[in-house]
């Protein structure tokens, strides 16, 4: 809020600014999960990230979403150097400003759909009633309000992903991170998800979508290819 409030005074820092950010596991054997990348995403952009399997798309998303720390480079989120963030601040940013749509819906199958969506507001200290109301609004927005009382385990794959998107949107994030949200879904649901994500972008949200679906890749303002360097690197140094 403070950042947007001062935007008339200061040049607004980019939403995401990666400089040489990479992640490798020390092993043994040492594994490079993400080769160093440079990426800048402005506020309100919808950027799709493409690349072959193993190029580090999910790792990149985890780093941007503060779920994992890069081992090299510098990552600024809204101008804040994330290397300096402790557990408290990282959790606060994840809970209040970042929405996640994972490759798998990651629903709690023994809980109701509404409970799953309201989980996004659990760590804001809101009363249960308010959380449930917000969850109902979100389920209405993604078009599965009728399933609110059903157990998440009873939903089809497409319905689960829609519930997961409702959960991601429930917190009103300024940055939405999606990891292959349409993978292995039927075309109807895919269209619906593309519409929902485009709507977030139209409303001014910053959206980053990792995808191999060309239909989804085309709907962004910009596409960022990952893995070309990696392949080039590998081509140049086959011994590694």
């Amino acid at each position, binding site marked *: 809020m403070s950042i947007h409030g001062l935007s008339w005074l200061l040049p607004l820092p980019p939403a995401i600014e990666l400089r040489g950010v990479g992640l490798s596991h020390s092993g043994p054997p040492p594994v490079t999960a993400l080769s160093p990348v440079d990426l800048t995403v402005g506020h309100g952009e919808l950027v799709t990230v493409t690349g072959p399997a193993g190029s580090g798309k999910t790792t990149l998303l985890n780093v941007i979403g503060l779920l994992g720390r890069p081992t090299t480079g510098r990552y600024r989120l809204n101008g804040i150097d994330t290397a300096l963030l402790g557990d408290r601040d990282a959790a606060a940013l994840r809970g209040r400003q970042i929405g996640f749509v994972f490759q798998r819906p990651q629903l709690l199958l*023994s809980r109701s759909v509404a409970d799953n969506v309201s989980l996004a507001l659990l760590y804001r200290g809101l009363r249960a009633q308010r959380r449930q109301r917000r969850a109902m609004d979100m389920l209405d927005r993604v078009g599965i309000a009728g399933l609110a009382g059903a157990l998440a385990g009873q939903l089809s794959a497409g319905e689960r992903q829609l519930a997961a998107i409702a959960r991601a949107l429930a917190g009103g994030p300024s940055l939405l991170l999606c990891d292959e949200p349409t993978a292995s879904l039927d075309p109807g649901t895919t269209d619906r998800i593309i519409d929902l994500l485009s709507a977030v972008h139209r409303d001014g949200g910053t959206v980053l979508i990792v995808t191999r679906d060309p239909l989804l890749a085309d709907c962004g303002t910009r596409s960022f290819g990952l893995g070309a360097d990696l392949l080039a690197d590998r081509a140049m140094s086959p011994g590694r």
Partner: protein
Amino acid sequence: MSRRIAEPTRMRARDVIGEAAAVIAARPLRSALTGLGTVLAVAGFVAVLGLSSTAAGQVTSAFNQRLATEVRITVTHSGQLAAGGPFPPDTQRRLDALHGVVVAGMYWRLTIASPSVLPARPAGAPDRTARPTGSPPALVAATPGFLAAVGAQLSQGRLFGTWDQARAEPSCLLGAGAARRLGVTSVSHQPAVMIGGLPCTVVGIISHVRGQPWVIGSVLMPSTTAIAIWDSPPDSPGAEPGVLVRTRPGAAQLVARQAPLAISPDDPARYAVTVPPSPARLGSQVASILTGLFLTLAGISLLVGAASIANVMLLALAERTAEIGLRRALGARRRHIAAQILVESALLGLLGGIAGTSLGVIAVVLIAIARDWTPVIAPLTVLPAPLIGAAAGLVAGLCPSWRAVRIEPAEAMSAYPAT
């Protein structure tokens, strides 16, 4: 960093409990099996403590009812022949001075030549009542202190008191049994009985006494009357005098030791003292050793119960990794995860504790019923018992929660399938 990045996330205490309860409720069978050890341990605690207090209560109630506060002092054969009579005149005063004595009184058997006791009839009236058969009722001289010590309760009339005693009135009390034999049903018209040929007014009928059932079958008269009118002092041969002492609860043993010395410091051996049996000390010692043993066993099973909770929760972490990663992604701090795991295990322990307490109480009641006892369970045993389970659960949750907060969210999201 001086600038506040974003308002920290927080979790309401009610939500921590709610989330923990939801996890437990989602798998009721597993939760029940996990808490089983705690159930048995707490049930053991409650049952052992409840049974020992029930058994102890049983001993004291049976004991208190009759004998615990009664001391009877009689004279040995040699004492009967001692100079100065069996009891000194100020016996009552000496006993009253003893600590723990509530009331004391003397009694003895009347030794008159013709101990017949007959119902009196108005002069000239035809003898319509049947003559009592068998041996006549015992004739007993008693001080008012004896009546108080024996706890005499009247069905009719009054007791004789210091007035009768001082004036050596020819009045008497009938035990309910003696009154029935003599055909005396009411004292409202001052009936009389003939004792050794002399008339004696019946002032009351005794219906109940404590500890000395023979009083019910006897005729009692003031001790002064026995001496003045019937010339039957306590030191006459065959009088078998005695003193009955009512003590405060718990003082009987002490009074029994001190009374002979107080009455006759120079020759306490002339008295025989009948005391209530002291509480079964050996029995209670054995019981306390057993109680300690069983409590130790219950403590060990509580450890096993806690270990079982810890074990199951550690194993469950493997399949809950994705859930924990998800919660972290949604804004949970490490401490929120730790709190949830701790509350989960404490809640499991608490539920086990409540179930165990119920089982323990049921066991105590059933055993008490089977043995015809009154179940005695101290609230101090029952009320904290579920908390023992909760505490065990809390301790059991330490290790799982420590492990849970070390799960890296990124790995959690990628390494495991959806929950």
